[in-house]
């Protein structure tokens, strides 16, 4: 079994606030891992550490067996890390299609002609085909979220990091999204998905991680995790 991601005792503080606290984690190839935890637990920060948008104070990050702790974000994309932002960050002056083309051309290091068909396929899978020629700046929040997913897919990821992309979707849209992510998972893409919409998450992932105050307080099969007392407390606290 090959591992895609290895975090070894990773810590990160913002000023006095320790946002990631000695996190160690191994994600085998092809796994779908869910991450839950209250707001401010450090979930998005963990993604930023994995993608290289921020660098850790301590610890090491390994991608596909290679130490990438000091590697800049754009190089990690080339190695196969695709990510969506919790707050959508589209290229507003480009159309939806062009957003995907930019991600595919640079994320894969391939010419435009070689990635065009794939971008069109991704637009279809994410139900954005009808908006292909729309400027990203004029999209609704929902479509911006879809674009986040589509653009992350366009980079051709081995490891796909999804940050709260189901929030705010209707029931039908959520099902479509789940189908899309399942499809990716079936193709062997490794997925880490941060989500508050638990039923969506648990219908896809085979492993669940709970983060609180920057620490891993539980990891294992979703059913076991959801049954544990600690998690229920945190979640009841969060939902209150």
């Amino acid at each position, binding site marked *: 079994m090959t591992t895609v991601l290895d975090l070894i005792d990773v810590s990160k503080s913002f000023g006095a606030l320790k946002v990631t606290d000695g996190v160690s984690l191994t994600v085998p190839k092809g796994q779908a891992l869910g991450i839950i935890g209250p707001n401010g637990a450090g979930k998005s920060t963990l993604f930023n550490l994995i993608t290289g948008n921020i660098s850790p104070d301590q610890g090491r990050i390994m991608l596909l067996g290679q130490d990438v702790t000091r590697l800049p974000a*754009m190089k990690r994309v080339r190695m196969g890390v695709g990510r969506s932002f919790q707050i959508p960050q589209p290229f507003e002056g480009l159309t939806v*299609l062009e957003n995907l083309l930019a991600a595919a051309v640079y994320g894969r290091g391939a010419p435009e002609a070689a990635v065009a068909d794939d971008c069109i396929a991704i637009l279809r899978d994410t139900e954005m085909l*009808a908006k292909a020629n729309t400027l990203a700046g004029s999209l609704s929040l929902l479509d911006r979220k879809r674009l986040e997913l589509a653009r992350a897919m366009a980079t051709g990821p081995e490891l796909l990091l999804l940050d709260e992309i189901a929030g705010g979707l209707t029931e039908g849209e959520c099902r479509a999204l789940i189908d899309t992510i399942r499809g990716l998972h079936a193709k062997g893409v490794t997925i880490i998905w941060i989500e508050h919409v638990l039923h969506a998450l648990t219908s896809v992932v085979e492993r669940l991680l709970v983060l609180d105050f920057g620490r891993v307080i539980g990891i294992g099969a979703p059913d076991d995790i959801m049954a544990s007392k600690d998690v229920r407390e945190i979640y009841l606290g969060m939902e209150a």
Partner: protein
Amino acid sequence: MEKGQRMKIVTRTRAGTITGLMVVVLVLAGLALPAVAPRSLIQDLFFILTMLSLAQVWNLLAGYGGLVSVGQQAFVGIGAYAMFAMVILFGWDPVPAVLVGGVAAVILAVPTAFFAFRLQGAYFAIGTWVIAEVTRLLVAQWKALGGGTGTSLPREATSDIMGVELIRTLFDVREAAARDILAYWLALILTVCIIGGIYWLLKNRLGLALAAVRDNTEAARSVGIDTTRLKWAVFLIAAFATGLIGALIYVQTARISPDAAFSLTDWTAYVIFIVVIGGIGTLEGPIIGVIVFFVLQSALSDYGAWYLLTLGLLAIAVMLFAPKGLWGLIAARTGLRLFPVQRRLVGHDINGGK
């Protein structure tokens, strides 16, 4: 998806095709023009074309690349001086020496970028200006090229520039006029190459990266765009083109001095005016801008200080009331794009084509 209805990605539009045809016609007419035009018109057109080229390059830097340089006169000056050096010190023909001007500008651009890229925003602008000033002061020490007072191209060099003899017999003009015609032709070709080259870059992957970085640098890095490399590429390309234009300008004037060749007003302030008035971040903008600039200059240049004051006030008014420039107003009203770069998906029911 049904067969035979394959989707594909296109950038071509009707307006774009018409632009292409118009460019061909205009260039052919432009090449033939010296047969009928008086020398003064050829000189005016040379000025317009070189200013347009400088403006397009500055627009690439600032409008597309976000690199607001006010030190482009460094590359005009070094390009011009490199051309002079090849002619005076090594006996080159001025026309091939223009290429050396471009190369010299790139060589100067490397340390400039190392220094200026460490600076952000306004400091970057000031940094580029400081480097231009330092370069001017250093060049003024170059005694072989006239030091602070400058020098002229030697007569024997200007009298047998390649092609001048041919032009003299072709149009039956004197040598000085033939030299103007040659410079004008070269300016026309260079302008077409620069606009065509920038357009080509924008239509290709570089254009996607520039737009992505301009919209969201963080997200651009997260899809694998090397933002530092992109800045370097844009800066070096701009320096090369600016060096070529600078050298060509001084082939025509045939006389150089550090103050003129490194002039902030002539080679950067006017150029910024042209881009801002016409519309920054578009290829059409500088074309409109240079026409406005030339008209104002012809009408007002006798009034000295008033002329500069008018330019300044006009630029401020445009920035306040039409931040996208005159072309921005036209494009908003008509939806016209003479140089389409947007990729569109066709062959499918797609709404929101705009």
